[in-house]
């Protein structure tokens, strides 16, 4: 069975949930082989084995010193060495870029932001803000596919996760954009926005940069916090938490929108959420049309009551 390469997303050796989802998808297509860049693959061996990785190709941390290109060189080299059936990466902003460059190197087609993929490598997209579903295929070369986090449920299956070190000779071109500093702006214990099973977002209705009503509810649910463009543009919440067309795309099991009217801009970033809940003063808010449950009312009254009720039930 042909190998299917899965580029691992990890933060300092801790494997992100999307990698388990990609390994699950890879098993439909062939034999999953994880591709690890950086230190810590030994420590992560068990969590990769748990989702069926038969091999773990590991490459040195030095590749992370440059923007995207070295990862594409690594993946292209592995495809050529292993005659892999496909390459799967997560559809984060960087993941999509890795996919694009890898495909150019391989002379392949690339599909990004895919919400499902079959054994025959037919990929499903949710486009135009979730209004249209398409099915696509790569026609040329080894398919390179970027899969949206939270779209494919992870299912465990045992793999050997045999670690194999890969030597990489980075080209000069790959070293032309150097990361000279990494700046941590937000430190919180909350889950990462695109990975979270539950997202609580605040919009214009929050009314100020005091997002505590949103954060308290999120914390009672172990959820990530998001924000609409209106809230970010008003300077109420940092840019990296923006959900929508020009921000992050999320697909959690539960999305709670507080004071967000739900313009297409916003819906494009959350419409594939499995359950949608809204609290809004405006009975005409477009988000209500796609909500599974909505409360028409003042979020500053409804939300604290909900948070209190959740805490009570714990």
């Amino acid at each position, binding site marked *: 069975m042909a190998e299917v390469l899965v580029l691992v997303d990890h933060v300092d050796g801790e494997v992100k949930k999307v990698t388990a989802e990609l390994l699950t998808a890879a098993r439909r297509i062939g034999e999953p082989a994880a591709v690890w860049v950086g230190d810590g693959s030994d420590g992560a061996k068990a969590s990769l084995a748990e989702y069926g990785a038969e091999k773990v190709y590991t490459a040195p941390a030095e590749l992370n010193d440059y*923007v*995207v*290109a070295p990862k594409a060189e690594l993946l292209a080299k592995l495809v050529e060495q292993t005659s892999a059936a496909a390459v799967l990466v997560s559809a*984060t*902003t*960087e993941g*999509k*870029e890795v*996919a*694009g*460059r890898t*495909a*150019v190197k391989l002379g*392949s*087609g690339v599909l*990004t*932001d895919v919400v499902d993929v079959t054994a025959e490598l037919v990929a499903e997209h949710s486009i135009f803000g*979730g*209004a*249209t*579903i*398409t*099915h*696509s*295929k*790569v*026609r*040329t*070369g080894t398919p390179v596919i970027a899969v949206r986090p939270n779209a494919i449920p992870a299912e465990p299956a045992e793999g050997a996760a045999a670690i194999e070190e890969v030597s990489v000779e980075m080209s000069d071109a790959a070293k*032309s*954009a150097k990361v*000279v500093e*990494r*700046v941590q702006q937000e430190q919180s214990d909350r889950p*990462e*926005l695109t990975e979270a099973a*539950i997202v609580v977002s605040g919009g214009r209705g929050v009314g100020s940069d005091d997002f505590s009503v949103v954060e308290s509810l999120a914390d009672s649910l172990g959820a990530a916090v998001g924000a609409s463009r209106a809230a970010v543009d008003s300077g109420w919440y940092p*840019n990296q938490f923006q959900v929508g*067309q*020009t921000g992050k795309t999320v697909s959690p*099991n*539960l999305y709670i929108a507080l004071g967000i009217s739900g313009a297409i*801009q916003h819906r494009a970033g959350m419409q594939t959420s499995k*359950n949608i*809940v809204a*609290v809004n003063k405006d*009975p005409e808010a477009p988000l209500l049309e*796609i*909500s*599974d*449950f*909505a*409360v*028409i*009312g003042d979020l500053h009254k*409804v939300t604290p*009551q*909900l948070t209190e*009720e959740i805490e009570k*039930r714990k």
Partner: protein
Amino acid sequence: MNIVVLVKQVPDTATERTLSPADNTLDRASSDGVINELDEYAIEEALQLKEKHGGEVTVLSVGPDQASESIRKALSMGPDKAIHLNDAALHGSDALQTAYALAQVLRTIEFDLVVLGSESTDARTGVVGAALAEYLELPQLTLASKVDVDGSDITIQRATDYGYDVVAAQLPAIVSVVEKINDPRYPSFKLIMAAKKKPVEKLDLAAAGIEADRVGLANATTETVDFAAAPPRAAGTIVKDEGDGGQKLAAFLAEKKFI
């Protein structure tokens, strides 16, 4: 400093967007064409860099005849001139083919910097900046929330989940921008009038040195097999808060086993 800013005409997200059943490509006739929103931020950044460092800003766009409107609109923000790559054979090109076509045009121009939006609102593939860097073997300075140029040194802040990376490179380079980078200007009446006289060079595939078998639907590296309207979401429950809205919501979440 000579800057090329890439502009894509996309269907207005405020209108109903569809694919055309004939070949599963974007139906450009069914909705109004507008400049891709993030491209306005790219134009603004190019203009600010020109104001600081001098030089010229050229708009480059690939698209059918109606893209001329968006090119004029882009010019009305302040760029000096434009290049419009337009050829019927480009119809149905996928993101990588488009990046290849752009790269071929860029090979014929002298530039220090290419600036583009980090993704378009229609296909949202987010690969064109990276693919251009790959084709042209230039530094990939994508997802920039800040750009600084000093002589031939360029530094950007690249947006990440945790904040940003500071990335350094030498010009020429490819820069893609995120929304946070600036506030695009509104064209003044004077600029709108001036834009009408700015030169727009029209290129077809042959003039741009693009092989016809590298672009277009028939040679696309990907294929949209089918499409359909997403199944409508079942109508949900809407309640009016009468002092117990939070409790009702909690009951719903409990029923769904979230709490």
